[in-house]
Each structure stands twice: as C-alpha cells, then as structure tokens.
C-alpha cells in the first residue's frame, strides 16, 4: 500500500511516498535527505506525540493547570489519555515540572505540570 505523508523534521516539508506492508515501511521516495527515512519509519510504524492539555484544579489560584506528557506517547493513545486527564482534580499546589500523574497510562512517561499553581 502506498501512503503519502509530509516530513516535518525540517522546514523543507518533503512530500514522501511510502510503501507500507503489514504496517512496516518497505520502500520510500521523495525525501531529500536521510532524516526522511527515519521520520517515515517512526511515523508509519510507531507514531508518537507529545500530548498537551489542561487539568481541573480545586482550591488553587488558577482554574485549569496546563499539563503535558514528559515525553511523546503513542498517537493511538491520545484520546484515552485525554479521558484520563479529564478525571483528574488537582488540589495540591504544583510547580513547573512537577509530576501530576507518574507512569501515566502505564506508558512509562509522566504527566507533568507546565505552570505554577498554588
């Protein structure tokens, strides 16, 4: 199967044509440098994303605390992650970088605060 994706590694934005078989990259064209191969492999076989969202607080100085995953998580887990985040009520003060939920969704990354909330 042929898939068309845009490489975002650098501002060039090469339009890649990828041959995919059983979810694996078997062929590639359109990339102007080897970074395209790395990008295509990751994007097709195991796309990952940093998730940024907000957590509801209780009795803190701001209503919503912005959070993010400390490292990218599988793209397929994004909506599940959002649902988990919606369940959280943060009532203890946090600082930038503090862990709000360790080993989030068992994925080996933490959900961390990106803003102070006291």
């Amino acid at each position, binding site marked *: 199967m042929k898939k068309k994706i845009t490489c975002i590694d650098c501002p060039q934005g090469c339009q890649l044509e990828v041959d995919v078989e059983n979810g694996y990259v078997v062929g590639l064209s359109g990339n102007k440098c080897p970074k395209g191969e790395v990008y295509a492999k990751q994007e097709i076989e195991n796309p990952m994303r940093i998730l940024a969202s907000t957590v*509801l607080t*209780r009795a803190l100085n701001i209503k*919503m605390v912005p959070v993010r995953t400390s490292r990218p998580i599988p793209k397929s887990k994004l909506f599940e992650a959002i649902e988990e985040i*919606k369940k959280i*009520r943060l009532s203890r003060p946090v600082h930038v970088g503090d862990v709000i939920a360790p080993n989030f969704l068992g994925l080996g990354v933490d959900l961390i605060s990106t803003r102070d909330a006291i």
Partner: protein
Amino acid sequence: MGTYDVLIIGGGITGGAIARELSRYQLKIALIEKEEELAFGVSKSNSGIIHPGTQNPPDSLKGRLCVQGNQLTRELAKELGVDFKAVGELIVIFKEEEMAELLRIKKEAEALRVPRLKIVDRAWLDKNEPNLSKKAVAALYAPTAGIISPYRMVYDLSENALKNGVEIFHLRKVIKINVMSSEKTFEVVTSKEAFRSRFVINAAGLFADEISKMVGVDDFVIKPRKGEEFLLDKKREHITNHLLFPLPSPISKGILVIKTSDGNPMIGPTAEDIEDKADLATSDEGLKKVLEGAVKLVPTISDNDIIAYFAGLRPVAGDDFIIRHEDKIPGFINVAGIQSPGLTAAPAIALMVRDLLKKSGLKLNKKLIFHPHRRRTTHLFALPFSRTKKLIQKDPAFGEIICRCEMVSAKEVRDAIGRGATTLDGIKFRTRAQAGRCHGGFCTTRIMKIMAEELKIPLTEITKRGRGSEIIKEERHG
C-alpha cells in the same frame, strides 16, 4: 394579577416612550416584550438619528410628529441623562439641476415648521464639511438634526417608567387576544400568562399586523424592508461634521454617511423589500451598494475603515404611521408602521396615544409624585481623567477595567446587570463593552464571569441575546 388600565405590547422605542409618558398618570400599566430584553427587535438596528423633519409630506403624521418629537427628544434626553448631540444634517446635491428638488424639500419642510433651514453653497461646504466630495454643488442644511443612542434611549425610558410604577415583562409573546366587549376588557394570552387590561396599545413593530389581526383589524400589512449598515473605525470619527444625506429615493432616504452617538461613523442603509421578518443577513451586494453610495459623499471612505456591520428591518405599513384608536374594537389602539422617523417621533407619538386614550374614555389623573429624572449613567470612557481618579477612590470597581477597547469598568458592567441586562448584547448596548476594536476578544470571558456571579447562573446559561444563543456548550468542573 388584576386588571390593568393599559397594556402595551412591544418594548422598543415606541412602547418605551408610551410607557414613560403614561407613567405620569394614576394608571396600572404593563409593558410586555417577547424577547429576552427590551430593544431587541426593530429598535436594536436603529441608526440613532433625530431627524429635523425634512422629507415628510406636510399632511403626514410622520412629518408632524417628527418635528414635534425633535424638540421633545431634547428635553427627554436631559431628563433621562441620555447623550444627545445636535450635529445638523446636510442633504447634498451634485448637479445644479437638482436644486429644484432641494428647494421643494425645503419648502415642504418649512410647511411642517422645521426651523432654520438654509441652502448652503460650495464655499460654506468647503469650510464646514471639508471631506465632502468636491463634486457636491450645494446642500440643504437642517441644523436641528441630532444623534442619540437608540437602545440606551429605550433602556433609560423604560427604567424611568419602571421607577414610576410601570410593570415590565420580558419573554412574553402574545398568542391570542380575547375581546371581552361586555366587560370592556381584553384578555391578552401570552406564552407565559394571560394579562387582562381595559386598554391595549399595539406597538409590536414588525409584528404589529399580526397582533392587530388577533382582534379582527386586518386592514394593514407590515412588510419588512431590510437595511444593511456598516460601522467605521472610531479613528474616523471626525471625517464628517454633520449627517450627510443624498437626495432621497421613493422608498428610502438613501445611503447616508452619518455620525453615531458612540463615535463611530456609519454608512448605509440599503433599502430592500423582503418577505421574511426574521431575515437579518448582510450581503456582498449590500456592502457594494453602501460603499458606492458612501464614497459618492465622502471619497476617502474605503472598506478598510469598516469594523462592523449589521442589518435591520423597517416595519413598513404603507407611506405613513398608523396611529389610531380602532373604533370597531373600543379600547384597542394601533401604533404600527413606525419606521423612520420613528425614533425621533416617539415622544410625540406617546402624547398622541395619550390623547387617543383620553378621548376613548380613559381618565388621566396626574400622579402626585412623578419622578421625571433619571441619573445619568457614568461611563468611564466619557470622563476626563481628573474625574476618573475621584470615581475610582470612591468605588474601586471603577478601576477594574473589563473592556479595554472602550474602557468599561467592572462597576459599569455590574450596574448594567442591575438595571436589567441579562445577556451579552444587553450589556453591550448599555455599556459599549464588546463593541470596540477587538469585539469582545479581551472582555467576553470577564463579562461572563461577572454575569454568572450577579445573575447566579452557570456559565453555560449565558447567552448572546436570549435562549438559543448560549455562548458555551460545556463547562469542565469538579
């Protein structure tokens, strides 16, 4: 609830003026309005011009009531603390051949006793209206034209009427009217409750024909005539000194370049007869027509100056106002077809309605205590800084700025809610918050929080102009 002496159907400028006038007398009065707030119907789209009385046939109600209303509005504005500015109007001609028409208009207006009209020449125009097209050859100058905020006038009239005992009901749509002639009473059935009243005044704007039909008087039809208007940036406030008119067409006064009470110049309106009483859409064709007309008068206007636009519907019932007691249905007074110059004529219409009521047997005994005055609303943006400091010291909430474009404080927003605003549009019309350059980008969430606090409702129930226009779909909360 008991039986009212007078029930006014319609909470726009006409209903508001009548309510306030009748509140001088010992009467039990109710005003009912079908929208969430007053002035949300026809009056909302009014351009705010207080006309001198030109361009009306001498034997017309429009003409007579406009001239009378021009004077009465000035007095009313003082009593109620509404800003009125006498800016004067110029009806401009571009060809010498058009002078005959201009003189005809002048003569007709003089028959109506419009004061101090004079024809001005190119030299006068160069001096007093420098941005007017150099192609203009002369103009008819009517100094008694002025500008006012139409919705603030409605709110201030109704607030004063309320203070003087009038009961005001929102969200009451009239469904049926039972004429109980033996009891000399009307039963007005609304979407909520039924009202009983000895006299009914139909000031229902676009729907006056439908209300009238409910009592069997169907000799007129209200046809909506759409007008699209475009507001210019306040930076261009001084692009004109007077209200600029072209020669009129058979159905409208033409595309104008006017000043408004809030400072933004306005261009328009178009005049398009339509069928749908709910069609308030603006169009590309409308914009094109308005720009063409505006540029003819003031060539330096461009569409880059436009910062907002809207459409309004004129309730047209033939050529003149229909203000009459329906002898076949005693006690029912129609006040219909109140299009331009309705805003100007409103106080005079109120006096005429008062006289019609008297003639039909309503005893008018003046109240011993009537409060004619209303304290002027404080707008931070209108004050010099020397006064601002004292105000903030007296009430810190004046120093909390909610709308940065129009400099509206939290105090003013709370006051507006206290005076009856329950929607974002209601707050906008009363305070100017959300009407500035950023159109609510900065202030909307701040205003919503104040509304939730003062009205004790969740943020999801806050609307733009009543149920159905909620701003937020969901709120995340614990």
